[in-house]
């Protein structure tokens, strides 16, 4: 008997340990994922720059200091001048050291302060990807040597890369940023929210509070449950054939992306909404009906306010899912190079996850860390949303 008890306790401990192990393993996987992304991605937020001394009066710039316009700057032969200056300062391999678009930094400096045209100034310009990677100890031996040389000369600085947050897609990894995709995500989410929230809440209210028991309400219910589980890529096919091919709405636009994602998010909101509405105790409805409130008043005065935290939680979760969604957007033309941030919902746009997908496919190795950095931005965004949902849930969790 004693032995038997001991055995049973041992099995109890094993079982409990298996549970703990499962939790720990799942948690560890998450930690590993986040850690890997952080490890790769944090580097993406920094950029290596090389200080370049330019003697403007002596340079063969075709620029009239009195007439600094965009067009004038574009025709001022800046790329060539930059190349020359760089070769003088850094040696023959300067082209390898500087980003091919380094001259843009000089252009912007001139634009910001045309007065510098009259003197010699030192401007920090982005280093090439090879140098950038080498400065972060990821590069080839030759590049590392070059970095060493530049460091010794005190020309090299590695600092936070603000332009990663303010620039848009591009071809040079040292110059790209996520602002365009971020804005695209924002616009898309706005459309999604504006469409799916009212419709979702209205549907949830109708089904939970008013719908008669009839065949067609059953159909609505089945469709909604089903839509919540339809693979997202199918929504992409829907967007492709209905919104693009049939309705001829503008391709690649945040509008279409938002509409497609709204169809996907709406059932999530309906289901969360129905659960929230269901958890409002019937006694509240009875109470209101019992003193002569009409069914619409009952819902809008009592049920909806009480269910709102739950509905909001569901909405945030649905929106978070939509924010991370990629597959359907590939089908509707958002897999595109869009370097001008969208100004409105009908402008061509891309979104963060698609940008990640695009960058993961880029040739240049500098994009690896940019991809991870973009992932960090996306994850931070999502964590914030999920955190808000959890906060709401905990704050308003009511036991009746």
């Amino acid at each position, binding site marked *: 008997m004693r032995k038997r008890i001991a055995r049973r306790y041992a099995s109890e401990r094993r079982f409990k340990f298996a549970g703990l192990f499962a939790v720990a393993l799942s948690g560890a996987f998450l930690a590993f994922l986040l850690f890997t992304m952080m490890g790769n991605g944090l580097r993406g937020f920094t950029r290596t720059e090389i200080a370049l001394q330019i003697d403007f009066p002596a340079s063969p710039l075709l620029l009239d200091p009195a007439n600094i316009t965009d067009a004038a700057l574009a025709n001022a032969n800046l790329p060539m001048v930059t190349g020359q200056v760089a070769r003088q300062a850094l040696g023959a391999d300067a082209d390898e050291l500087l980003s091919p678009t380094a001259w843009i930094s000089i252009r912007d400096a001139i634009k910001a302060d045309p007065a510098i045209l009259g003197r010699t100034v030192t401007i920090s310009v982005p280093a090439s990807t090879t140098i950038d990677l080498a400065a972060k100890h990821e590069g080839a031996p030759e590049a590392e040597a070059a970095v060493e040389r530049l460091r010794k000369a005190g020309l090299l600085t590695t600092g936070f890369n603000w332009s990663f947050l303010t620039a848009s897609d591009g071809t040079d990894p040292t110059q790209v940023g996520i602002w365009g995709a971020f804005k695209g995500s924002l616009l898309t989410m706005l459309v999604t929210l504006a469409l799916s929230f009212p419709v979702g809440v209205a549907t949830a209210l109708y089904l939970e509070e008013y719908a*008669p*028991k009839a065949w067609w309400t059953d159909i609505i219910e089945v469709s909604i449950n089903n839509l919540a589980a339809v693979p997202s890529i199918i929504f992409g096919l829907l967007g492709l054939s209905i919104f693009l091919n049939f309705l001829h709405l503008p391709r690649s636009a945040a509008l279409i992306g938002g509409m497609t994602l709204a169809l996907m998010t709406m059932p999530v909101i309906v289901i969360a909404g129905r659960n929230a509405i269901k958890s409002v*105790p019937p*006694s*509240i*409805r*009875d*109470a*209101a*009906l*019992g*003193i*002569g*409130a*009409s069914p619409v*008043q009952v819902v809008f*005065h*009592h049920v909806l306010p*009480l269910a709102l935290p739950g509905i909001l939680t569901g909405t945030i979760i649905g929106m978070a899912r939509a924010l991370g969604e990629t597959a359907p957007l590939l089908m509707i033309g958002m897999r595109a190079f869009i370097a001008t941030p969208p100004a409105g919902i009908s402008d061509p746009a891309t979104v963060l996850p698609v940008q990640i997908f695009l960058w993961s496919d880029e040739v240049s190795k500098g994009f690896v860390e940019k991809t991870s950095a973009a992932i960090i931005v996306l994850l931070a965004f999502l964590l914030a949303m999920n955190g808000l949902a959890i906060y709401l849930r905990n704050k308003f969790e*009511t036991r009746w």
Partner: protein
Amino acid sequence: MTEPTNPLAIANPKMSARDVKVFYGAKQAIKGVSIDVDMDNVTAFIGPSGCGKSTFLRTLNRMNDTVASARVEGTITLDGEDIYSPSMDVVQLRARVGMVFQKPNPFPKSIYENIAYGPRIHGLAHAKADLDVVVEKSLRRAGLWDEVKDRLHDSGTALSGGQQQRLCIGRAIAVEPEVILMDEPCSALDPIATAKIEELIHELRGRYAIVIVTHNMQQAARVSQRTAFFHLGDLVEYGVTGDIFTNPTQERTKDYITGRYG
């Protein structure tokens, strides 16, 4: 089993039901009940669990409309007007025939808002001052004013069970109903709170027609002047409370009152 019973003839009934049958889907819960309710007396419905007391009570202000499967036959009148006629506005009917439920169910709002809600949606008071008057009056009538007057803006759900139930009665009173229906209003309460509610019913009597469902025969005896005994969907006996308890005419009533079943 169903013997015809002779409901008390009441000269000028406030509400009157004639041959009312209620079905839940195919199941019949009320099998042809006729009864009159008047202003001057408190009417108690008693009977074993599941006999249809609540069901019948809820037909009186059409709360059964909210149950999709429920269907009502027969006529029920309020001041002679058929409450199931299409021209009857249910919302207004419920304002005239108020209801208090078994479990106190205050809105999760302040005490003040609980009372003010009804007058507001019925347009009985517009200015803040008017509302204040209505709230105070209703809480006074519900015997709650002294206990809550300093914390009108606390949540109604923070009150004790008995206070909550009185709040619900006050809320019903606030829309100036003519009839108040109470479905086992004390069953969730402790003895002291129960006593307070019973006292309150005494005070309200005469001003409103009151119908109370209870499974506690002592309570029926204490608060009511008329008692109706239901069994399996039938109104078995209806009469002056004293008579029913001391001298029931029906065998089933007697069995129930002496505790043979239930």
